[in-house]
């Protein structure tokens, strides 16, 4: 018995050390923020996500694509079908070939995937001094401590220390590994975005909202997953109880 406990403790201590992923040369783990989707009962704050969508659309989408989303996915954030049609129609997509064999432009429909700012990676690099702005559809899952990390980056632009030699076209960022990031600070001033719901758009507020939006974009199924998980686990706890009682009853027949 003691041996089993010892073994379990050994295994747990390894697991409790946290996901044993090697750390990149990051300065440290980013400061933990409070997100509406944290924890077992977390859900996406729809109001924050809508504000975040506005920040993405007005600031980030100039350089960063969101290719794994389609316009119709926005209905999950609370927008109506007509509003989504309106968003989509602001973009143009290439379609075709038509009967003459030519490709043509048409306004985007809700069923279309998101239209990125550049037709391909090479065009993106050419417009950004050789750096490629990453697609943001999965950014909060593709980085260690994703949401906290993205938030730290957006708030981490500072004056470079005197003794650090900055490479050309690079900016100093506290949270970025190596501290030199090719992205110029995207959030520069309070009120940069006029929120539709009237919330004051400070830089931390915009950062918080856009990270909420991007977390939703990376994992839209989180709400459903948490809801289903609650029911499944409740069911299994009951099943464990009933099956344990059954096991005891069956085994009581022995001597």
């Amino acid at each position, binding site marked *: 018995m003691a041996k089993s406990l010892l073994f379990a403790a050994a295994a747990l201590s390894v697991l409790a050390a946290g996901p044993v992923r090697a750390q990149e040369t990051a300065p440290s783990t980013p400061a933990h923020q409070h997100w509406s989707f944290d924890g077992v009962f977390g859900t996406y704050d729809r109001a924050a996500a809508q504000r975040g969508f506005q920040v993405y659309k007005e600031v980030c989408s100039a350089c960063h694509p969101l290719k794994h*989303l389609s316009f119709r*996915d926005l209905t999950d954030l609370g927008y109506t079908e007509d509003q989504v049609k309106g968003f989509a129609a602001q973009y143009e997509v290439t379609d075709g070939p038509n009967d003459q064999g030519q490709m043509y432009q048409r306004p985007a429909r809700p069923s279309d995937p998101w239209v990125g700012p550049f037709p391909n990676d090479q065009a993106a690099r050419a417009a950004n001094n050789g750096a490629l702005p990453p697609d943001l559809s999965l950014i909060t899952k593709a980085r260690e401590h994703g949401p906290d990390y993205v938030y730290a980056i957006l708030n981490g632009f500072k004056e470079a220390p005197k003794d650090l030699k900055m490479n050309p076209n690079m900016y100093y960022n506290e949270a970025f590994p190596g501290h030199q990031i090719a992205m110029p600070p995207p959030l520069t001033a309070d009120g940069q975005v006029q929120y539709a719901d009237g919330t004051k758009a400070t830089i931390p507020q915009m950062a918080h909202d856009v990270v909420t939006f991007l977390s939703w974009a990376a994992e839209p*199924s989180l709400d459903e*997953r948490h809801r289903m998980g609650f029911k499944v*686990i409740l069911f299994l706890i009951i099943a464990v109880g009933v099956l344990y009682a059954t096991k005891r009853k069956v085994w009581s027949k022995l001597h």
Partner: protein
Amino acid sequence: MAATGAGVPNSRIVRWIDYRLPFVKFLQHELNEYPTPRNLTYWWNFGSLAGIMLVIMMVSGIVLAMHYTPQSDMAFDSVERIMRDVNYGWLLRYIHMNGASLFFVVVYIHIFRGLYYGSYKYPRELLWMLGVVILLLMMATAFMGYVLPWGQMSYWGATVITNLFSAIPVVGNKIVTLLWGGYTVSNPTLNRFFSLHYLLPFVIVGVVMLHILALHTHGSNNPLGIDHKGPGDSIPFHPYYTAKDAFGLAVFLLVYAIVVFYAPNFLGDPANYIPANPLQTPDDIVPEWYFLPFYAILRSVPNKLLGVIMLFSSILILFILPWLDTSPVRSAKFRPIYKKIFWLLVISVLVLGYCGAHPPEGWYVIVGRIATFYYFLHFLILLPLIGKLERPRPLPLSIGAAVLDNRQPAAAE
């Protein structure tokens, strides 16, 4: 016509089938009546859990394969489509992804149970060796499966591991080119990995059937490690162990559900959510946790070929374990010295896993080498020696006697 056994409907249909193909009688005997030691602990639940995990992985895998596209330009996007657009696609993907980890948890516990209680000893040597074959097939299947999403870790993990074969002298590079179907890990590689990933689980099913057949020839081992001598030592599998297995399954599913619904990416690597980029290596190429101890052994040796040999040896050594361990006593319960070094092995494997997760620098290298050294020392030197030199504790007369008496075992063996 012969009647069927107790508890089985003695209907005409059943008798008609059984006379031609004794399927019902077979199940009757193997499940209902099959004599099982009465003293099995919960450490014996893990075999049936492994079997159930195999079924879960195959069912979820086959349904996922209906939506996945094994082409390098489309694979990553098809997985995202599964996560976002396919009904319950996210659930299927997380079940399959975390199921692989839990499958290995269950199998590793099952293996260490065997190591502790001497389940690999006479007459179960072949049973054990079939188990090692299953482990190897699982590792190949899991490796190829991880490549399929075509993320950064998929691509670079595949590159590192397939490059191992270039260590083979003379023909190494030709073999690697053959594996790749090209000049690097590329679309042909992905396609063939998908085909083999779909195939191997069916091979595993076949080996599992042999494994169970071998098991049923002499029956299960037990915590005391002594053979059953009379009817007082055994109980029928049904209903005792069916009830116990059902309870164990419910507990296991609870853990599985907590992982799938509340921590589905805990065991994974964020870098695999970045599409594969052949022109950019991630900062650290790390395999999934269940490969970490072997990865650490590989990196312990500064020589490429020797590292590869050590890697494969660390698994192949398990094949000859029944002959390395010279003790006539099975269970560690009665082996005071072996009992202690068993835990040293467990610790060394955990340490190897920890080292495998970190870049091979500084202390990680030194500690990794010590743990690798111990791993091989344990199997190649300690087991043969301890078997001969150790004075085992006296064994109980029988399972029944030990269970009913509940006292110290009486006379010496």
